[in-house]
């Protein structure tokens, strides 16, 4: 039932008549309730990507690749053709799809464990080959689906179920800044770090996604959009606390903004 239909039962016909639809679910999202925890950035990230797909009118010519992790079910919500990849292998899967269907838009949607731990080789080599696709990297510094274990991007001192006293360099090394790494590769054309914790951040992310699809259409190489996100359940915080913690603790290490832009844009 749409919002307008709900209101039909609540408002008088006269009141209902005066309503104006200012926002609705795009056709690129299925009519399915997200399974994500309250306050989780995944729901917002899904919606923004699919709104951009609708806005650009590319629903019929896009193929998405979902990862293993919390967003493994992305294909239940994204109303487009999708493939669900093995853990870490989304960019290998996407490489083949794009090579075989070069006139389609292709993107992967991956978390930090998937992209920056088990899938590091595929991530690096896909970017290094300059595959003409978009990688959306949701970094919340934790393994969400398996219950809050340490990720490669977990901050030093951050407590997780496998770093109960806080991550230390001695046992677990340093947080991996993989966006900065792939920006060094000549195959990437656009590497940016965004977030979804405020309406303004969402607007910035939307612009980055639009640009990425434009670059893909122009055949410019790999676009890499990191979304610094939260995990209220894994971080054991309320959604509001999580977003405040994100700004205070994640941004110093993972600052939002463009890391690499195409030559002519500099």
């Amino acid at each position, binding site marked *: 039932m749409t919002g307008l239909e709900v209101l039909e039962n609540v408002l008088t016909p006269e009141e209902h008549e005066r309503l104006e639809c200012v926002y609705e679910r795009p056709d690129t999202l299925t009519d399915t309730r997200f399974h994500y925890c309250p306050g989780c950035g995944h729901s917002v990230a899904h919606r923004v990507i699919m709104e951009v797909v609708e806005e650009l009118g590319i629903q019929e010519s896009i193929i998405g690749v979902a990862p293993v992790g919390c967003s493994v079910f992305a294909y239940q919500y*994204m109303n487009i053709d999708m493939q669900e990849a093995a853990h870490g*292998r989304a960019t290998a899967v996407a490489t083949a799809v794009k090579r*075989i269907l070069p006139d389609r838009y292709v993107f992967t949607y991956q978390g930090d464990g998937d992209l920056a731990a088990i899938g590091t080789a595929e991530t690096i080599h896909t970017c290094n080959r300059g595959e003409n696709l978009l990688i959306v990297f949701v970094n919340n510094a934790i393994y969400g689906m398996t219950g809050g274990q340490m990720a490669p991007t977990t901050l030093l001192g951050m407590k997780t179920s496998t770093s109960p006293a806080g991550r230390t360099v001695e046992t677990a090394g340093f947080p991996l800044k993989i966006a900065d790494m792939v920006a060094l590769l000549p195959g990437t054309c656009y590497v940016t770090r965004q977030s979804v914790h405020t309406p303004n951040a969402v607007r910035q992310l939307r612009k980055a996604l639009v640009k990425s699809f434009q670059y893909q259409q122009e055949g410019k190489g790999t676009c890499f959009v990191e979304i610094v996100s939260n995990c209220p359940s894994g971080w054991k915080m309320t959604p509001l606390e999580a977003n405040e913690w994100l700004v205070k603790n994640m941004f110093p290490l993972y600052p939002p903004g463009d890391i690499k832009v195409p030559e002519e844009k500099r």
Partner: protein
Amino acid sequence: MGEVRLMKGNEALAEAGIRAGCKAYFGYPITPQSEVLEYLTAHARERGMIVLQAESEVAAINMIYGGAGAGARVMTSSSSPGISLMQEGLSYIAAAELPCLVVNVNRGGPGLGTIQPSQGDYFQATKGGGHGDYHLIVLAPCSVQEMADFVFDGFDLADRYRNPAMILADGALGQMMEKVEFRAYEPSEHTPPKPWATTGKPRTRERNVITSLHIEPERMEEINLHLQKKYRTIEEREVRYEEFSTEDAEVLVVAYGLVARIAQKAVELARADGVRAGLLRPITLWPFPVRPLRALAERVRGFLVVEMNAGQMVEDVRLSVEGKVPVASYGRMGGIIPSPDEVLEHLRSTIEKNQPTSVEVS
């Protein structure tokens, strides 16, 4: 007559891939099959095929998943350690019912092993190999000609059943040169429509999703039952084997691939010596020729299974024979190819042990 050429097994396989309408090949170099990737990079791109040297076998098999899911005929090839790395991906491919062709030019193991020929990957190829209940359709060539022929057959079977097919060869078949004739083959006549492929969702249909994830146990069991039903159909329809001198045979050799050719020579030597020996060569290792072996078990006094491993296919022969007559096993390992004389010797001792007066089936 089609076009006849003198080629290495690996090259014949690669050339057949191009002719079978393979749209993309993803692979990683490993001895003794690197000629496949080399041949394709030299000869396939100009004929419209995508050839990508992946960063690992893990990446290669997941590219196969993506490419097959996008609706194209795709293939990869590797040798034993590389095929081990591909097992997770193969399980996903079988579960998502994606047609593709995977070639294992088997070398000796375990471990890094040797680059010499072996049949040590029989269990892995025929029993699934990765996690979960699934099967590959496994074709075992015994000549360079079949290295080429089974590429066409493998793609056709894969497409017909939406199932990964495997060619299980060995290092010698990959490296040796023989004449090969390429059949006339029009890929478009052999490739069914793939309405399930992810090619971009038009407004006229629901979205296509390629996945192997089914969280609800009831749904997951349904998927398994569907797969098992498909496997029973394949077992019913697609068993392939070849018989040699079995009509009056008292003792039967069972061997596949290159070893079948050696065994055939041993059978000829035995016949020249007055021993009524015969040979059954399984061509499909899965589905396995259970029924013909069961029928032969009613007529022969014993079986000898010859393999280039410690005795793997012998288990399937014993299951087929159901204890009716003794089944002996002879295997060489480590990359050593048994000679016809060795096989003959074991054939003789099998016969001696299985004289009518002394046969005791346990």
